């Protein structure tokens, strides 16, 4: 490809100055710039240089040292130091070892992994080949969700092209190192993003987590030592090799080095992926990169870390984005979901939404997660339905804390986070629901009251739209809603052209 064409493409993609100014792209460095289906594009963009360097100049120990020195930590959520994982897998003596890429991205609204694989599939191939060289594996598996057909197609092509170019296969680039990889498709279970469940799934078993120890580095896929990293982690490897560990560790803050890709979603102007250096504050990412809250609404909370992360409030906006600070603030880094919530949202309802997701995705193996999250969801549902009882909030806390500490895998251990963090930061909203049967934000359906005000001209549109005949009134006279009959479907509210219907939530004792 000609250089001019390359830069042209660069300028169109990166024209949005505000969005990109504060970003730092490492994992996404090629996404949108190169033709992902063309291996030459990747090579032109310095691709496979790292693999060539590793094979010709570095011992496996050098590679591991480099990854360790870079300070890279797992981008899948837990943030375990990548180099240490590599080192302990390399230490195992076994004829057969595996490298695995976790591409079972399941967080609702998150598509970091998908973008990397669709936009730069060779980065994964190269990263895994380097990892395999470092730990002494000959075989790699990418566990990719079947719902990403384009990613599957592109990665498959990348693997085939890499094979043809001898970046995969026997005696790669003339060295004594041989390595090949294949794709295994996940069938859509969220829990299969958990590393041990993922390995069970690859083995053809039900995707249920295994007990740890033994850790995958000792006994993983098919009971062999296995190095498992997330897509984004693998995508960082070649850059670390090419630019050096020192360069990588100069980016970021504290124990969190490099960058992190976030999927900005919710009530934010610029939704989409943003890769930012660690250490940026939440305020910067939301207001500078994300462009703030649309429609002049006020910021209320930000949920980081996907469905099992926590909700952080306005007062925490100056928290820096790194593993330790987010955990300290009561949330997690997770795999990089970031959902911004504005003043219109009811936090109890938000917590219920996330819990509905984790509840239905629990694998059913361990009791706290399988039974406990169900009970938490029942209590939350009861609260949002206006049937909350005194003590319900305390029950949520008791169950939530127990489930966090007693569950078998990361899914259960983090599932109560949205509830616990919203109780911690928005307790008054919970109490309002329980004690006053009121949803201040007028979101919880069963706590809403529809009334007709004086703007009513008696056009009867609402009366005709009501499916249960709860609205009465003579033509050209003010109509009324019979509250006992109203099923709170909201049809009248939507049908009225005169703003004559009020949607309110009134405290019990004021009724």
């Amino acid at each position, binding site marked *: 490809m000609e250089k001019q064409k390359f830069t042209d493409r660069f300028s169109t993609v990166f024209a949005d100055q505000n969005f990109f100014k504060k970003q730092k792209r490492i994992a996404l460095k090629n996404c949108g710039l190169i033709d992902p289906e063309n291996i030459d594009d990747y090579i032109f963009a310095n691709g496979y240089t790292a693999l060539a360097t590793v094979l010709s100049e570095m011992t496996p120990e050098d590679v591991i040292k480099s990854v360790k020195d870079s300070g890279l930590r797992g981008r899948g959520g837990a943030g375990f130091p990548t180099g240490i994982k590599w080192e302990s897998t390399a230490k195992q003596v076994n004829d057969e070892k595996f490298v695995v890429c976790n591409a079972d991205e399941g967080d609702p609204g998150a598509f970091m992994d998908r973008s990397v694989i669709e936009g730069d599939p060779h980065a994964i191939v190269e990263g895994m080949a380097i990892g395999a060289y470092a730990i002494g594996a000959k075989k790699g598996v990418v566990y990719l969700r079947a719902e990403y057909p384009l990613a599957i197609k592109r990665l498959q092509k990348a693997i085939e092209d890499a094979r043809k170019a001898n970046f995969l296969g026997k005696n790669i680039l003339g060295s004594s190192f041989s390595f090949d990889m294949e794709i295994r498709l996940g069938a859509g*279970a969220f*829990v299969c993003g958990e590393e041990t469940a993922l390995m069970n799934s690859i083995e053809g078993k*039900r995707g*249920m987590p295994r*007990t740890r*120890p033994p850790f995958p580095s000792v006994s993983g896929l098919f009971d062999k030592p296995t190095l498992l990293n997330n897509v984004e982690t693998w995508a960082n490897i070649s850059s670390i090799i090419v630019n050096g560990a020192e360069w990588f560790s100069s980016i970021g803050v504290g124990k969190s080095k490099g960058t992190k890709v976030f999927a900005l979603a919710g009530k934010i102007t610029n939704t989409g992926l943003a890769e930012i250096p660690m250490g940026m504050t939440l305020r910067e990412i939301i207001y500078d990169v994300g462009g703030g809250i649309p429609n002049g609404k006020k910021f209320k909370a930000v949920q980081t870390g996907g469905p099992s992360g926590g909700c952080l409030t306005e007062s925490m906006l100056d928290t820096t984005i790194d593993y330790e600070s987010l955990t300290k603030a009561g949330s997690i880094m997770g795999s990089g979901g970031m959902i911004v919530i504005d003043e219109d949202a009811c936090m109890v309802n938000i917590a219920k939404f996330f819990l509905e997701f984790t*509840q*239905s*995705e*629990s*694998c*059913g*193996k*361990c*009791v*706290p*997660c*399988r*039974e*406990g*999250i*169900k*009970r938490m969801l*029942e*209590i939350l549902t009861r609260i949002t339905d206006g049937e909350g009882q005194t003590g319900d909030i305390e*029950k949520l806390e*008791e*169950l939530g804390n*127990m489930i*966090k*500490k*007693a*569950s*078998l895998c990361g899914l259960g*251990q983090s599932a109560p986070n949205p509830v616990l963090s919203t109780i911690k930061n928005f307790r008054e909203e919970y109490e309002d629901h329980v004690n006053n049967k009121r949803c201040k934000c007028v979101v919880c359906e069963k706590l809403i009251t529809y009334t007709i005000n004086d703007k009513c001209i008696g056009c009867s549109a609402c009366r005709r739209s009501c499916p249960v005949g709860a609205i009465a009134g003579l033509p050209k006279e003010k109509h009324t809603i019979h509250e006992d009959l109203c099923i709170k479907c909201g049809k009248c509210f939507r049908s009225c052209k005169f703003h004559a219907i009020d949607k309110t939530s009134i405290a019990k004792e004021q009724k």
Partner: protein
Amino acid sequence: MSTIKVFINDKEYTVESDITIMQACDAIGIKIPRLCYHPKLAISSGCRICIVEVEGMRNFVASCSYPVNEGMKIHTNTDEIRKARKDILELILDNHPKDCNACVRDEVCELQQLASTIGLRERKFEGVKREKYVDDSSPSIVNNHEKCILCGRCVKVCAQIQNISAIDYANRGFNTVIVPAFNDKIANSICTLCGQCVNVCPTAALTEKNYTQDVFKILNDKTKIKVAQVAPSVRVAIGEAFGIPAGSNMEREIAHALKLLGFDYVFDSQFSADLTIMEEANEFLERLNGKGKLPMITSCSSGWMKAMEQFHPDLIDNVSTCKSPMSMMSSVVKSYFADKIGKKSTDIINVAIMCCVAKKYEAQRPELAMEDGAHATDYVITTRELAWMIKSAGIDFKNLKGQDFDAPLGLSTGAATIFGVTGGVMEAAIRTAYELATNKPLENIDITSVRGNEGIKEGSIEINGQEIRVAVASGLGNAHKLLEAAKKDPNKYHFIEIMACPGGCIGGGGQPYAGIRDLPFDPKLVNERAKALYKADELNKIRRSHENPAIIKLYEDFLGKPLGEKSHKYLHTHYKQKFPKGIIRKSKEK
């Protein structure tokens, strides 16, 4: 063995270095409450009841799987841990029926015992429960989803010990259930009905199909002759259900109790075990002389028979055509014995007391029916069911005087007694085959190479200068292993004994549940039962089946000779390949 120091509840202990926290605590006398854990099965850490606190760890740790390490500080009974355990137990109970008093496992329920240990005193989180669903399609095993707590022991025993994998988890989260493949019924599945899942189930989610009410009803029917027969391994296990130490031989008490229950005749399946040996030993000698396929494989175990028809149809010609001792007895009772007392076979109700749940299925096999189409064995009840019937009828089992089995079908030899333990059928058959073939007494009657609790055993004996190589497997997982080896080298063995349950019938799926705080399916327990059977063999004056005078008389009066015409009619059967869901019928075989 290297050791390390750990701190358990602030006290220092020296423990083995490569064990789990649970094992370390067991060793010092602290039994951490547990539920899904079983020492014979892979550890899944699913129930989370056995959690403990380890200093420095953010979360609780499942003690069943977490290894100890030097200087580890473990707390098993802090307020927080006790509260968490209570919450977890409540979560289990909240999704479990509250009808303990109306449950077959009342008093012998592990979940009930766990609740009393943990001391749950209030319920806080109750909500919806899992859907009611009872699969009673099979004549042997009932799966009641409502009572299932998803501990997964049944799944593991089926896959890891029996190598069948008839059941597994289906669906996710709160909707998870344990079902046969394709969410189908047990009767349509590859389940061999061995009942090991029932043995390890902590609740009444998996139970035998209970026929006690039918049997009580029949006992009150004055128009019928009620005949009972008792399997060898029942007598050395039933005591456990009454708090009598494991390995006590209760045969005289059982005979007495059955009479008190109202049976007219109480016979001994050991008699028909002797009869089986007469037929089987002769069949073996025939095959050895070129009439039929070798190796010959035993056919006593009903679970194994179903497994064979499903998974090893290529071995149908290798399997002995002998019916099981239970079915032989039932046939003889409804023919020979009926004639003898001047009754029709339809006047007689045969009730078999077995250690086995697969026998319930065997009893209903159409090929084992009498000439009129009626089942030879009318009811099969397990050791557990009999124990309950005895209790329910108010019989003071512990203090019974005891009495002998009725003549003539109650007399048996030591060879028949050891049918109840793995290797026993082989040993009994060798004793008879050797002497029938050589006309010389067998010098060492104890054939120890086929004894012991190893899953697969081998031995050999010389008969008329020919080395006869035999092999024994118990547990279907071991059976598969042995048979694969035998298929690879068809000349490797002459005679193979297979028992579906680990340890043989003494480890059967119908044996008493473990007592309070004991382990189900405990190898120690099975050993005690085995010892009692070998002791009874030793004490018997007659230890060879062909020397049983009642057997000799049966042949004189009725059957003629082994493998004769009448034998074939009443004592032998045939097998047919089976295609439950999941076994693919190849077009050729249609």
